[in-house]
């Protein structure tokens, strides 16, 4: 029983007078794919915003492998390893696919400004390393041929694939995907689900919101359902 990567204990949240969650307790195991279903307006996106630290819960705590999520700045939670893909995938449109990946890496030389002045040549070496890593990831996601193309010109499906590969480059351990399969054609769905199972095989955890139940069920280990402000585990 590997230790839970994400542990939520009695979380409750209401949104503009509407009670969304009260006393929700769930745990996600490391290296699994989990899907979350729920009728419309049941607050699935709000739930992901809570985990990502973009919204404050009314009560309850969220633990991500030992670290309790604090709510003053969102980027720290993302740095700790929770990657988030929005419903509208947030790729950088005016940069090439390769540049998108380079920027997503945690150790991107842009991190701190001062080492430009003192360690100029280590920057070039680091840049070469990152390009190497980015190319491999692109091959795995079969986006290799598009590495020079501007991210803005990709189709929605490819943007979602690029977004997932950026999170992988960012070494996110828990990936929150908001509707990865919606309004995407079948062969891209195939590519996305094979990418997700690769992620699972090298120890990443995926937590996704999805309406296309038959695609989500096919690849998820556990399924959760939101039912009148509670989240239950189905299988």
């Amino acid at each position, binding site marked *: 029983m590997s230790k839970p990567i994400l542990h939520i204990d009695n979380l409750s949240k209401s949104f503009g007078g509407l009670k969304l969650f009260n006393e929700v307790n769930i745990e996600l195991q490391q290296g699994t794919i989990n899907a979350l279903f729920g009728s419309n307006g049941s607050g699935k996106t709000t739930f992901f915003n809570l985990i*990502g630290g973009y919204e404050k819960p009314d009560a309850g705590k969220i633990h991500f492998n030992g670290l309790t999520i604090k709510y003053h*700045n*969102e*980027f*720290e939670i*993302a*740095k*700790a390893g929770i*990657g*988030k*893909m*929005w419903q509208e995938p*947030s*790729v*950088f*449109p*005016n*940069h090439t696919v390769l*540049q*998108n990946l*380079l*920027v*997503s890496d*945690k150790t*991107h*030389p*842009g991190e701190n*400004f001062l080492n*430009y002045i003192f360690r100029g040549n280590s*920057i070039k070496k680091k*840049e070469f390393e990152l390009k190497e890593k980015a190319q491999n990831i692109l091959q795995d996601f079969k986006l290799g041929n598009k590495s020079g193309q501007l991210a803005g010109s990709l189709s929605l499906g490819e943007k979602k694939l690029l977004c997932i590969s*950026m*999170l992988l480059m*960012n070494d996110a351990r828990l990936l929150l995907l908001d509707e990865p399969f919606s309004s995407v054609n079948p062969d891209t769905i195939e590519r996305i689900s094979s990418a997700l199972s690769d992620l699972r095989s090298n120890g990443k955890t995926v937590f996704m919101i999805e309406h296309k139940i038959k695609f989500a069920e096919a690849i998820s280990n556990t399924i959760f359902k939101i039912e009148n402000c509670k989240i239950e585990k189905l299988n």
Partner: protein
Amino acid sequence: MNWMHILFMCEIYVILSLSANLVSGYTGLLSFANAAFYGLGAYVTTLVMKNFGFNYFPSLLIAITFNVLISFIITFFSSRLKDLYFTLATLAFQVVVFSVLYNWEKVTGGSYGISEIPGVNILGYGLNGTKDYAILGGFFAAIVISFFYFFQRTPFVRLLECIRDRELGAVSLGKNISYYKFICNSVAAAFIAIAGSLFAVYNSYIDATSFTLNESILIVNMILIGGTGNLIGPVFGACFYVMLPELTRMIPIDSTQGASLQMIIYSLILILVVRFKPNGLFGKFKFQ
């Protein structure tokens, strides 16, 4: 037409527009506070040189650190406010700094300004005449231009542009947005301090009226007409705007009307550039 004076003014405005471009071109936030930092740079250098008797270069360093500290305010604005309200906050900051410089008699000499500012002497050789100052100005301008030339090659700029295009995307990748905005604002404020101090020692008399909101609008004009997000745009914008008043001096009208005529031309160009060429003549980044 005194060519040395024009050259010196070109150097000052190249430094100013390149720094303004760093704030607006790479973070996508349009700031009207550049003239405020220009004024603060000038006043701090003058006050340090006159009251504490320091030489030019140490007081320049003090002015730079002072401007960098003050630039925290702009970073605070940029982390909380989005495009329109950020621009508005910097406009208000500009007017506040101007009215402090203009009204605080005890320290800044109020509306009379400060005169007899000591000149610059390097290793005993005192600079005098516009030719010497043009050389000093050229030296500083060269530093600023080469800094930006190499700055554009680094991966740091790529990250800045990504943050500018999709801030939320960068946050969800764990990038600390305000750190990068702080870097841009403080480096820009430091360079602007150099321009301010150069103007003070060159003119040997400064008063608040040369650091008004109109000055900020002029600097914004420069990066808008030249275009942002690269090197040629701001440099061209600066030289164009320094040449322009020389032409209006040709037309036989009295000086007060001349000033209004200049502002009429600036505002007309501003409106036309924003409407027809939003990313300026050479610029890459469009304020869309």
